[in-house]
């Protein structure tokens, strides 16, 4: 059930953005930025990615789960940083200079996710995306997984950033349904 909603979501994303923003690319393909956290590889739709930047020390926020690393100053605006490893139960990331923050635009909001390294940019056809298997929702929160994709025998877990953050922060985020409009990002 989760997987079907996630898939339809991807479909609508592709439909609204594919032709206009990617231009020459196949209308049925979306581009994904993929990155690694430990041995696992994740991908987010490139249209949601605003920039990728090196790690800068964060200021901690009080009384929040460990996956909320804190806030940083992104050229004058203050954005929260989420630790993807901690989010998936791997404990807080021991940051080094080589860690990167993927800055993502979700609706009106800008936020960063802390990952180990950027790995690739992939053009992924919608047909090639497999639904996540029927996982034990008690073990893995599948809400924010939009599908799985295989490339060179690697499995890339595609994340629905909007849901990822909607699950995280607060009730007011959950009301933000719309993915960023393509023109906002271009």
């Amino acid at each position, binding site marked *: 059930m989760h997987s079907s909603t996630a898939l339809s979501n991807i479909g609508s994303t592709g439909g609204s953005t594919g032709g206009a923003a990617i231009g020459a690319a196949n209308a049925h393909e979306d581009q994904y930025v993929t990155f690694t956290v430990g041995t696992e590889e994740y991908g987010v739709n490139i249209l949601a990615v605003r920039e990728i930047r090196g790690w800068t020390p964060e*200021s901690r*926020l009080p009384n929040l789960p460990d996956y909320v690393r804190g806030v940083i100053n992104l050229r*004058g605006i*203050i954005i929260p940083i989420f630790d993807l490893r901690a989010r998936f139960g791997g404990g807080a990331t021991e940051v080094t200079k080589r860690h990167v923050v993927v800055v993502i635009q979700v609706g009106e909001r800008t936020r960063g996710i802390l990952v180990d390294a950027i790995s690739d940019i992939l053009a992924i056809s919608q047909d090639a995306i497999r639904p996540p298997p029927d996982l034990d929702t008690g073990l893995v929160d599948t809400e924010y997984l939009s599908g799985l994709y295989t490339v060179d025998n690697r499995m890339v877990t595609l994340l629905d950033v909007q849901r990822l953050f909607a699950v995280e*922060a607060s009730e*007011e985020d959950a009301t933000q349904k719309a993915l960023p409009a393509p023109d906002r990002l271009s």
Partner: protein
Amino acid sequence: MEDLSRFKQTYFDESAELLAVAEAGLLRLTPGTADADEVNAIFRAVHSIKGGGGAFGFTDLVAFAHEFETVMDLVRNDAIPITTELVDTLIRANDVLGTMLGYARDEAPVPPGTGDAVADALRRHQSAPPPATDAGPPHNDLDAAFAAAHAAETTHPDDEDDEAGIFGDAMAAILDARNPSAAAAGRQRWTVVFRPRPDLLLSGNEPAFMLRALRRLGEAEVECHLDRLPGLAELDAEQLHLSWTITLLTGPSVDRERIADVFEFVADECDVTITADAPPPAVPDAAAPLPDALRSPSGPSVPAAAAPPPPPATPEPASRPADPAAPRAKPAENGAAQHAGLTSHTIRVDLDKIDRLVNMVGEMVITQAMIAEHVRELPPGEFQELLEGLEQLAQHTRELRESVMSIRAQPVSSVFSRMPRLVRELAGGLGKEVQLVTSGETTEVDKTVVENLVDPLTHMIRNSIDHGLETPEEREAAGKPRTGTVTLSAQHRSGRIVIEVADDGRGINRGRVLAKAVEKGLVQPGASLSDEEIDHLIFLPGFSTAEKVSNVSGRGVGMDVVRRNITSLGGRIGVYSSPGEGSRFVLSLPLTLAVLDGMVISVGEERFVLPLTNIVESLRPKPSDLHGLVNRCDVMMARGEYVRLVHLNRLFGIPGATEDATRALVVLVETEEGARLGLVVDEVLGQQQVVIKSLEANFRRLDGVAAATILGDGRVALILDVAGLRDMSRQGGSAPPRAAAALPAPEPAAV
């Protein structure tokens, strides 16, 4: 009085816009194809100008606008056909309206006869479409005059202070065109021929100054003669080749000598002839714009009157009567010059744009602080120029910030102006005689602050009149004038705005206040309080001393609300009272909400900013000052009062902080409700102005955190919400969401 002029200014600004709307609409009107929306828009514009004019008593303007409006109404109802001739008349009517508004703005009487010809034309349209030839002679004279007006106005952009004078000239031209003899009646007309020698400029004289001086004597029409102007090849820029004929219309006080005085210093370097009672000059020729003539020595073949913008009807008035297209083309060509009579000196800007600017300047302040911090680490003496440059940058940044903030600033008069009516109503309702004295209405402060001052000031003035002032009988018995005085004043003082509400009433009755406070359980019976402390009891929630609750002062929701409103603006309130002489409430507010005076503190590795307005003092407690209360809750004796200690590291879960309060620092803070607590922190790093940044824009609100800011090293620091911290600490760390944080809404729009 000042109040009315403020509204007037708004009226003139709006009228200028409406005129532009009407004109744009009129220019789009084409015979036979009336767009109902367009016609309605023009009608509404004229109607609005008329309505506003009526409110200010501009009778001539209203009478004229009425004719204009009537015709537009007929057009609107398809009662009369749209003809080219009608549109011309309407455009001219629009011009006349602008001219009249110009007079009204300058508080000059509208000269009799202004716009009569156009008004007549309008009236003719109201009855029947006039024959085409009717638009003949008066039409063109007026056009010529208007052209002169526009030319004179548009070519004097650098003469702002003389604008009224130029406008006067233009109007004189208009008057002359219509009725030369009437305009000249009772005045003296002079013709001054001013023919300077070519080397006049070499002696440092400037003919423009003399022409300007002449213009101050009366209404001057200046004609520039280019006959001595050589071709470009022979032109010597340091030689003067021009001469002028000035027709001067003066009052009786100006005699030949006064005119001659103008040329006193150049008498040897020019030929001047002054002739009285010369015949009126031909208007079109007189339209030669002065500075253009001075600036365009491009060749003798270029007549000054043809300088841009060319007034189309000017050169051959007699040959154009049957050509209705000519006057129509004029407004389009002259464009912005159309409303020479009502130039707007203000622009309307979307608030978002200003806020974006404010934000960007905030960034600059941070960046500049960042650079300054890095530079401090450089070896001294080696980068002298860099340091000087940075010093200048800091200076400019500060000035830029002040300028930008001043755009958002508004005079407090918009709030003060509401008070006289309130005073009047209250005095009537309470049977008191009250006089309100205001001062410093022009003091400017941030728009948001101004808007949020209305309620507190209303409360305070109510309070002063209801509680402070005695009845006239009581005042007489006390040897005071029957009429009580409430003073409302505003002034800038050391980067803040200070607003005072003072009355000369009975002062705070401390005995009654104390008794009341004890009765309400706000103060322990038998407690000894200083006079000042007693005075400040009136700010406690639920406190009211009115012996009978009146519908004026409400039910004890007075001063505590005032205090809360003021502190939510980052302000402070104090009261000073002396029995029998009156009370004085003093508000001190920041000039802007975008920056905040804060104290940077550190806890473990983290740094926070405490708003300075919350801080009472900071101290290092002695072990004997500290006491444990029940379990884990520490209290401390500070200035004879027990305050609860709040360990910020425990509350926020910060590792590595000093646990022992005797080795840490206690910052004594006070919430807006007046509750005190002691924040245990590691260090107080210093005071700093910080730019308020929203945490909610990209994340969400957090308990105990009002907003965030960026410190000099580029790191984010949270601005603490003292009242929120108090709530959190009372509930063991997890407070329910408070309705509103202590700080005002931070920066309006994140970049």
